[in-house]
């Protein structure tokens, strides 16, 4: 088993999963608006649980969102620097793929729609075929103007529910399976730089500039 360190900072609480040669450990830490301060402390705690030193980690994996951009950037900047210094690969796993892997592990098959809330009353949505190899899946989220189901497919909300939308919480088991089956990226510098948070919508300033042009 690969010794890995995974951080999901897409929400106020930070989820960390770490593995040693035999098993994996996971924990949710209360890092509300404080991940910048706590990141080394919570990584130390997890690696201690896994009895792995930071220089023994073979793979780094970061959640790319969608979610809190500040949190995603803190985790991304931290892990990509570690990957660069230790010449180990960094991979990104988005919440859509992780959630799809969770549904698949739960025995669901066929096409589903996954939704994640964003901004006020808006949501991101993707359609994913659970019959395909999720390790190769590249989500292309759309921004919906409301948080209602928009297709005939079974619709699931990521850590969230609404009328006609069933809540799914991505599981540690599905994440572990995804990490173990995903082909490790090369530790090349150019590969490292490709791992960025999902920037699905432009910043407010960019949107205003576009509106002005129109």
């Amino acid at each position: 088993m690969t010794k890995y360190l995974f951080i999901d900072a897409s929400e106020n609480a930070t989820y960390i999963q770490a593995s040693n040669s035999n098993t994996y450990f996971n924990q949710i830490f209360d890092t509300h608006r404080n991940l910048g301060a706590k990141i080394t402390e919570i990584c130390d705690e997890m690696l201690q649980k896994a009895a792995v030193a930071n220089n023994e980690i073979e793979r780094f994996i970061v959640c790319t969102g969608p979610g809190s951009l500040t949190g995603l950037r803190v985790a991304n900047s931290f892990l990509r620097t570690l990957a660069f210094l230790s010449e180990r690969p960094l991979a990104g796993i988005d919440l859509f793929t992780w959630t799809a892997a969770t549904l698949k592990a739960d025995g669901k098959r066929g096409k589903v729609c996954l939704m994640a809330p964003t901004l006020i009353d808006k949501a991101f949505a993707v359609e994913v075929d659970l019959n395909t190899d999720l390790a190769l899946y590249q989500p292309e989220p759309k921004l919906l103007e409301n948080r209602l189901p928009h297709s005939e497919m079974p619709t699931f909300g990521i850590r969230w529910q609404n009328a006609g939308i069933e809540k799914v919480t991505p599981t540690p088991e599905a994440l572990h399976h995804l990490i173990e089956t995903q082909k490790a990226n090369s530790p090349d510098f150019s590969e490292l730089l490709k791992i960025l948070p999902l920037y699905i919508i432009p910043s407010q300033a960019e949107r205003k500039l576009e509106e002005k042009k129109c």
Partner: protein
Amino acid sequence: MLTLGIESSCDDTSIAVVENGTRVLTSLVSSQIEIHRRFGGVVPEIASRKHLEAILPLLRDTLEQAGVKISEIGQVAVTAGPGLLGPLLTGLSCAKAIAWQQQIPLIPVNHIEAHLTASFLANQRFPEYPFLGLIVSGGHSNLVLASGPRQFETLGYTVDDAPGELFDKVARHLNLGYPGGPVIQKTGEGADPHKYELPRPMAGKGYLFSFSGLKTAVVRLVESEGDALDLPALCAALQLAVADTFSRKVKLALQETRVKRLVLAGGVAANKPLREELARVAGKFKCEFLLPTIHLCTDNAAMIAAHGYLTADCAPENSLLVNAVANWDMGAPCSF
């Protein structure tokens, strides 16, 4: 001792390696000016995104150009504040990863304090105390009496806009471009600074500064002059008003404190009329006058590394728990 410095408090990402606090081996800057130009100012969210993209290539290039391995770095100094939180956190997280992985000390640095150190670094020397420091930039305007690496008595500060902000706003109003300081200086070159009379804000009111009224005065002048406006003369007059405002406060401070060393720092320290005016004041008071090179005027990691070296003893015991802070008074302890 090699100190790696990391700076990301606003729109410049910078990484530097400084030896023993005074010798800059490399200092690289990735500027976002072109990106923010179309918005007429720095957009924090976009700045954060660009810092994340820039920081790792910059780290690699800095180490390569300095000819050092990461294992040779003895400590990491990073800007922890004041500044824009998103950009600060990107640099801080990178610095923490280095310190955590290499098991070397992390030194949180106050960005404004580091600007003063830059003026000494430009002369490859350590700061000597006491000195009167004037920090002028896009976000700050502070007149301080320094008595140690982290000992400052704030004499004056701006109650509204900083001088760089004034230049940016006026340049935007006049459609001159961004950033305002350099374009206003270029436009005003060779023009008569006395053609227009602009106010000297807060004159005779102690050490406090205010620049928003000066901006209003410029707007009114532009309206009243209409097509007859002499743009170069206006730019020259504006710079004279700013330089004269600072000059009056600095003279007062030199008289009252009787210190014999004057330090000018910050991005607006690149402004030629201001540099010349304060050089005259220092000469009149027989003071040593220190100012940074143009590279060290703007935000840079060399000054962060140098100031980190100086203030390593003041760093909190468990500095890996430090967070980025938008507001951090000079000399105040680093908050967690």
